[in-house]
């Protein structure tokens, strides 16, 4: 999966950091989202999807990539 964040839309609710601290962090000066990795490992996929669903500002997108068989 590929993760995209929009720092302009972010309202610093912290929902994504609570859901997946391995993938999301917050800027020191204003709590705005910082993406730690664009391509999180598979075992974090559900948590990242939850982060995107919980984001109140809809500032997180997940692009699902087809698995290679």
């Amino acid at each position, binding site marked *: 999966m590929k993760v995209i964040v929009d720092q302009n*839309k972010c*309202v*610093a*609710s*912290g929902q994504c*950091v*609570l*859901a997946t*601290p391995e993938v999301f962090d*917050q800027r*020191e*000066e*204003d*709590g*705005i989202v910082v993406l730690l990795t664009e391509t999180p490992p598979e075992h974090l996929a559900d948590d990242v999807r*939850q982060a995107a*669903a*919980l984001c*109140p*500002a*809809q500032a997180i997108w997940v692009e699902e990539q087809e698995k290679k068989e």
Partner: protein
Amino acid sequence: MNTTSAPGTDAPSADLPDYPMTRAAGCPFDPPPALYTLQAQAPISRVRLWDGSTPWLVTRYEDQRALLADPRISADSTHPHYPHPGPGQKERRTQSRAFIAMDDPEHARLRRMATAAFAIKHVEALRPAIQKIVDGLIDAMLAGPKPVDFVQAFALPVPSLVICELLGVPYADHDFFQSNSKTLTKRTITREQARAATQRLVDYLDGMIGDKLAHPAHDLLSTLAERVRAGELSRHEAANTGVLLLTAGHETTANMIALGTLTLLQHPDQLTRLRESRDPQLVASAVEELLRYLNIVHSGRRRVALEDIEIGGVTIRAGDGVILANDIGNRDPAAFPDPDRLDVGRNPRHHVAFGFGVHQCLGQPLARVELQAVYSTLYRRIPTLQVAVDLDDIPFKHDGLVYGVYELPITW
């Protein structure tokens, strides 16, 4: 078919239900029965307010999330059709307007000046200090007489001490700011009461900003004062932000502590499960479940439509008031299976107790840590905790913007 609404007309039928509605006798933890009926039969329909206005009431979870996240919906409390909860609340929101009552870009500019202090890492760093406050208040309560009013002895001091520390407000002033914010969180206050209490708090926070300009410290008000000094924030804006953070910072969490405790005492199986677990994830889940189940912000999130919006088979017209009743949204069976059952293990992280959209609660990480510290400590330290009066004799905040109890006599 939606029979109670008249989309797009200025003359809705005369038999609209009044909002807010009344809870059923003997069911103080459940939303009013009329909200269940509306959610099932007319999930977006008009209601009548105190001033005769007829905004839309939205009762389903998905519709609430969609509208709260919709940029065509405004939170501007100065809009002529904004559906205020009462005359005093209208006065208050006009006199001291913080960013929760503004739209972007002003909202984002002002909110971002306060967000750093509520970032997850910053709040986690406060956890030991919060735990110490909780432990100390339990010690004091156990050493004192019983029965005791749990609200005054514990539920209110916990968040008041925490927010004072975070903002840099002296806790010695707690009688002053607690009594004024208690006034302001009553839905039924008059214009005069609202004006006086608001002015006292604005003057107080303005004075605090002045102190921080002269003597900066490591606290949030000093951060705002620095922005004032830099010319990025007016002193009036800084004071209004301070009033918002101080009042929202203790009223809401205090009500969750007192009402949450009463709820658990009424659900002994859930209380036992929570008390006997050593799993921090169960504690975190219990916090989310009590937030969902109680949804103490029970007067609805209030908005106004800036453009026509088609949703759920109705057309909300530009200029129509809109109220999102998150209390019943959090009991929507489409989002939460068996929604009226309290289940501390269900971890309903997608609840809307903190709202949704760009105005979702700024202080939620702090509230979570405070509630986790309380719920994981109190019932273990005082396993025989019990209410000292009958449920019928407990004064619930039916007239509050935020629900809770005015008093909760407890013993052990």
